């Protein structure tokens, strides 16, 4: 093993020094690899940033890490997104999940919000602010007080929506909604505070007290829209989802089959077509609840993978071409080394190592540059162009460093560089030593 390592380290030395000897060529190709890696890492950081913003925004405004929602049907063709007698379900959740951080019940609604000058459709979260420990931590108030949301008839909205409706703290607004009973209802509310935007979701979502929501929809206090479950570790979501499904089924509840990437309001048609009446529960993840908004994130990921693939192909051609040149230039050296007793595998290793070194140095530089660029741009809080706001669900560019993603991307590029070098390296390894000998006769 020791002898093998010494031999390999000598091959590594030859490979590395050859790269240094042909510095211009190495710099050009290494620079190209670094450029592609920078792009991949930069776009990856943007994607991670968008995802982080979405998670924070979504888990504040619209969803828990897990949600126990469902539908209540009085008749077969008429459903309401309600969970009745939810306190019992809360008890089951608390007993079932070992890493539960906290849970809270929230009403859900979708209504027209009317100000003196404008109106718009908004998503409504009916909250009991005393049981929302996360909200004071993540919501930053622009004006007013978050605690005032405890007062019946209050409303908290975010700055972009407040600007659109031209309202500030203390102003009155009116909700107008068609209830589940099929009648129009209105409720007056007063702005208790305006919070800073947290991504695009906050531009069309508001908070009101649970009882005000119940009043708006004319439902009783034992019902809620969904129970939002927050875990200490988000990695446990799949496991905890299974635990909850088993526990609730065991307690006699009917739990709907999982439909990934579908938010509750996308299920109305299907539920209304079904014959059953009464209560069915539906367990969803935060990703399911904002799946309708994930296309922007998927777009960034798709774009980065597409660009990287195209550029990788160009680099692969570059690496192969460079190695062909190197092998042609060093034919005599290869023949000499074969003549003095180097095996074919060692020749192969020598050239593959050269590509690996180039790839590793290029990707390391690129990963560093991409991360640095992302960190700098993140601190500058560049505003997003209006067209991109909806696409990326954020009003400013946010970049997040994801070490696993950065390392993974850099490793894949290095691996690609190494793999494409196998073709010319095999050719070099197959070369007969006579090639060198014949040059000196």
């Amino acid at each position: 093993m020791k002898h093998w390592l010494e031999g390999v380290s000598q091959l590594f030395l030859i490979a590395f020094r050859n790269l240094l000897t042909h510095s211009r060529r190495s710099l050009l190709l290494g620079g190209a690899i670094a450029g592609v890696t920078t792009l991949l890492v930069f776009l990856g950081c943007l994607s991670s940033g968008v995802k982080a913003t979405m998670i924070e925004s979504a888990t504040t405004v619209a969803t828990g890490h897990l949600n126990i929602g469902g539908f209540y049907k009085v008749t077969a063709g008429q459903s309401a997104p309600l969970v009745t007698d939810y306190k019992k379900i809360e008890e089951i959740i608390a007993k079932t999940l070992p890493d539960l951080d906290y849970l809270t019940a929230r009403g859900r609604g979708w209504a027209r919000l009317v100000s003196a000058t404008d109106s718009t459709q908004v998503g409504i979260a009916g909250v009991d602010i005393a049981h929302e420990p996360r909200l004071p931590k993540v919501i930053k108030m622009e004006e007013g007080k978050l605690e005032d949301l405890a007062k019946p008839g209050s409303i908290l909205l975010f700055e972009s929506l407040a600007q659109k409706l031209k309202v500030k703290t203390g102003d009155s607004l009116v909700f107008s909604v068609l209830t589940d009973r099929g009648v129009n209802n209105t409720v007056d509310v007063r702005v208790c505070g305006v919070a800073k935007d947290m991504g695009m979701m906050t531009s069309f979502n508001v908070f009101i007290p649970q009882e005000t929501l119940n009043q708006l929809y004319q439902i009783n206090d034992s019902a809620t829209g969904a129970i939002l479950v927050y875990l200490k570790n988000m990695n446990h979501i799949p496991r905890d989802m299974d635990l909850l499904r088993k526990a609730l089924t065991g307690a006699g509840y009917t739990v709907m089959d999982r439909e990934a990437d579908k938010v509750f309001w996308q299920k109305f048609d299907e539920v209304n077509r079904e014959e059953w009446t009464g209560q069915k529960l539906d367990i969803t993840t935060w990703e399911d609840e904002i799946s309708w908004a994930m296309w922007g994130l998927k777009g960034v990921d798709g774009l980065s993978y597409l660009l990287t693939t195209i550029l990788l192909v160009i680099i692969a051609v570059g690496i192969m071409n460079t190695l062909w040149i190197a092998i042609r230039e060093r034919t005599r050296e290869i023949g000499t080394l074969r003549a003095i007793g180097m095996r074919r595998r060692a020749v192969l290793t020598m050239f593959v190592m050269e590509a690996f070194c180039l790839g590793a140095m290029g990707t390391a530089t690129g990963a560093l540059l991409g991360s640095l660029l992302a960190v700098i741009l993140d601190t500058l809080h560049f505003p997003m162009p209006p067209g991109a706001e909806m696409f990326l669900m954020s009003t400013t560019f946010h970049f997040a460093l994801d070490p696993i993603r950065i390392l993974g991307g850099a490793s894949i590029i290095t691996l690609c560089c190494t793999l494409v070098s196998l073709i010319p390296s095999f050719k070099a390894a197959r070369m007969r030593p006579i090639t060198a000998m014949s040059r000196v006769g």
Partner: protein
Amino acid sequence: MPQHAEKTAIVSIQKVVKEYHLDKVVVPALRGVSLTVRQGDFLSIVGPSGSGKTTLLNLIGCVDTATRGTVMVDGQDTKGLNDRQLTDLRLHTLGFIFQSFNLVPVLSVFQNVEFPLLLQRKFTAAERAQRVDELLKKVGLDKHTQHRPSELSGGQRQRVAIARALVTRPKIVLADEPTANLDSVTGENIIDLMKEMNEEEKTTFIFSTHDAKVMSHANSVIRLADGKIAAGKAAAGRH
């Protein structure tokens, strides 16, 4: 030769024919050469360009195979060996000295000489260093161990090549026109050095040359012409 008869045959070539194919034309390089080289010989192969000197060395050096006939090196018929066995034979039994030195340009003098020992994977770092240092001292390059080949003169580079060829203590060293790229004084010094190694280590040297001065150092001379031995093995003048 009575003194040769007592020595063991290290290379035995019987009726060797080597033909090269250039498109549809067959070019004969060797036409039925038979030759025996004994251990400890200091043999010179001479002849004009195209006479087959390099081809003969290539066959003995196991870097090429004969079209017909038998090439035995250290008791092994090279025709029956696969690539790995031929590589091992070259690594453990043969040493090569090239006209253009053929050193690895990115390695130092020490690393170039040490390289075949690393390929052998038999010696510790200390053993390798001891052997390399000894040889570099013998060839007068112990002050240049860390230099790169490009920092040395032609004569010094060929000395490195000699040290590299001898570092594994091979039974045979093949040198293809080792003095062709050197001035006459340096060339003669190189041949003297090879001769010294031949006498000290009892290593068999087979080298090709055009140079009459160089061939005068050889114990035996083989003259090739048109792929055949033109004149038999003969003792050379000086020894």
